[in-house]
């Protein structure tokens, strides 16, 4: 197992160093070193011709299901899926069983993460038990290794609690991630519109999301603190975030590959692998999401990777659990945006590496000399057929099964260790 690599002739795209040029990258003892200067005779050479060499991709919103629902996914299997998808780091949400609202669960996650194929950054709960009543011990959680707090899966119903969370989290350098949903408007199983009417399914209107997005923006603006909006799915939310940013509000936002690729039409035939929360929206919403990715309204692409087994998905639509996996399809679907001219290569790297690292305060998202050797090598041309037998995650609940995808990570290095290798 070599600790030295020389990645040759790749297109190095490193926005933080304003670099986009063909060149070589050298790795020694888990860190990036100067390719020209260091003595790395025994380095393994990696031919990256025709490939992009970028700072390791980071997915800032995944569910790893451990502790408590390991039959769906666990930290090891989830990290393998992440590495296969080109990720060197993932932030995992606290809606485990038990909820990650204390040092003990955070420590457990990090202990298991030591053997994982990606770096694991725990997101801890905003409230004890995520019950929305009182704050979790942010100081303790920060010390234990949490990078952010969120009650993801659920909204924080009580506005006063959310206000206090924004204020208190800032004291400990923890990002606050909001699952924005007005619960009284959210009784339904798909987007409210002509498709839900046609299928006879109760719909969740777009305002269920945008009402809460506005609340978070208003609280952030009032307190002067930062908030990050998770999984944005609607045009109205995108516009609210855009205008808030113009006013100087400290709001950041992420969207997912399924919101920029699919619409509520994907539910046709009562497909439970098209059921998630927030739900797939209309084509108008999808276009607005694309616009938001192009113009900088969105800071990050994150998958909301939510594994569920056939127990939860092979049932009647109304009874099916919300969520789809996404780690292995995120990069190919995002590369399609580059091919279609929605974003350029630099913006892609910002959305999938630089900005997630910055929002979560991570030592990542850069290929500077001395930085940890978290590197993703992307072949944007390579085609592959994403069939169920090829899925790395324990769960197979993806609406992209059987899709022919183009572009993927062919080599992933985490701390100088190869975690995924298709190059050979």
């Amino acid at each position, binding site marked *: 197992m070599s600790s030295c690599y020389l990645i040759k002739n790749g297109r190095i795209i490193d926005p933080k160093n304003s670099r986009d040029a063909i060149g070589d990258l050298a790795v020694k003892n888990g860190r990036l070193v100067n390719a020209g200067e260091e003595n790395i005779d025994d380095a393994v050479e990696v031919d990256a011709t025709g490939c992009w060499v970028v700072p390791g991709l980071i997915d800032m919103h995944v569910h790893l299901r451990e502790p408590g629902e390991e039959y769906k996914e666990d930290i090891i299997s989830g990290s393998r899926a992440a590495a296969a998808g080109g990720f060197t780091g993932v932030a995992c949400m606290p809606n485990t069983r038990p909820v990650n609202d204390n040092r003990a669960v955070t420590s457990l996650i990090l202990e298991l993460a030591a053997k994982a194929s990606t770096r694991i950054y725990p997101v801890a709960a905003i409230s004890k038990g995520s019950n929305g009543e009182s704050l979790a011990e942010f100081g303790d959680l920060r010390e234990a290794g949490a990078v952010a707090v969120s009650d993801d899966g659920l909204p924080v119903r009580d506005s006063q609690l959310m206000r206090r969370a924004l204020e208190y989290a800032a004291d400990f350098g923890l990002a606050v991630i909001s699952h924005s949903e007005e619960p009284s408007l959210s009784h339904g199983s798909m987007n*409210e519109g002509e498709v839900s*009417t046609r299928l006879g399914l109760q719909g969740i209107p777009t305002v269920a999301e945008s009402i809460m997005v506005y609340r978070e923006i208003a609280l952030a603006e009032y307190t002067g603190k930062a908030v990050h909006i998770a999984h944005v799915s609607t045009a109205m939310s995108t516009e609210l975030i855009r205008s808030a940013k113009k006013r100087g509000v400290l709001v950041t936002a992420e969207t997912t590959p399924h919101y920029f690729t699919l619409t509520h039409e994907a539910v046709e035939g*009562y497909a439970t692998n098209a059921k998630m929360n927030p739900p797939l929206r209309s084509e108008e919403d999808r276009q607005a999401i694309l616009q938001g990715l192009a113009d900088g309204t969105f800071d990050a692409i994150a998958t909301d990777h939510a594994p569920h087994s056939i127990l939860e998905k*092979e049932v*009647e639509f109304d009874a099916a659990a919300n969520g789809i996996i996404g780690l292995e399809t995120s990069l190919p679907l995002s590369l399609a945006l580059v091919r279609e001219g929605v974003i350029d290569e630099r913006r892609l790297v910002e959305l999938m590496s630089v900005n997630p690292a910055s929002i979560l305060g991570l030592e990542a998202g850069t290929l500077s000399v001395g930085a940890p050797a978290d590197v993703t090598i992307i072949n944007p041309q390579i085609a592959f057929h994403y069939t169920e037998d090829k899925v790395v995650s324990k769960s197979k609940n993806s609406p992209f099964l059987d899709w022919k995808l183009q572009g993927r990570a062919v080599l992933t290095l985490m701390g100088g260790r190869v975690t995924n290798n298709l190059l050979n």
Partner: protein
Amino acid sequence: MTTGYFFPHRHILGIDHLSVDDIHHILSTAESFKEISSRPIKKVPTLRGNTIINLFFEPSTRTRLSFEVAAKRMSADTFSISASTSSATKGETLIDTARNIAAMNPDTIIIRHSFSGAPHMLTRYVDAAIINAGDGTHEHPSQGLLDMLTVRQHKGRLDGLKVAVIGDILHSRVAHSDILGFTKMGSEVFVYGPSTLIPHGLDRLGARVCRTLTQAVEDADVVMTLRIQKERQHDPLLPSFREYARRFGVTREVVALARPDALVMHPGPINRGIELMPDVADSDRSVILDQVTNGVAVRMALLYLVMGNAPVSG
């Protein structure tokens, strides 16, 4: 019996996937079966040896009995399972229930379920023909078909008519099937009810959403009234039945706005005095009981037609 038409459907899941020709064929077949029910010996051997299972997860008087009567008059063996006395109470999933039933080789399973899409799901897991007897708020195709048969009988045609549908459209699978059916056959459906009970995007299904009762009912050939359902717990849809009755109830005065020969229809059960006044329900313009009689004939037709598409074993 209309011969020479190939009816291509193995399952009856909704009106949405039936063509105009399919619908004409079903209605004509139903017409020809109708006289069996007025014979002294109400029996033909057409479906002898057939096993038909009624799997009802929601209460039903008309539909369930209607399917049973239809099946028995065609000499099939029918069995009924209702959810409250089945292993569903022990937590058995729908798929498991259906698979276990299918393992006893029924020819046809008729299912009513509170989840939209449940019949669709079953077609993926069992071999029998599936007939949708009402799924959630999605469709109730046999009801839509019997409504169309009733109108066709009295009006002689199904195109160029104005059909007014009044009431709780949001929760009514019957309304959805009627809207799809009548629109497909060339009529116009005008819908009226409280805004809280009109689903989003209904116009995309082909219905005209009216702002006033007059707009909906004026010169209508058919006035179809829907049952008002009890309030849903988390959804404050209506303040009271009293207010609904005063503002949206179909009374003599309302029916007077329609054509003099307009039909008054209701899928049943009726909340007398709320959505439909008793004197209207019992008037000579009401064809509500014709609907029920036609229901048996339509269901006989459906059971007969899906049997024609059973896979040939061998």
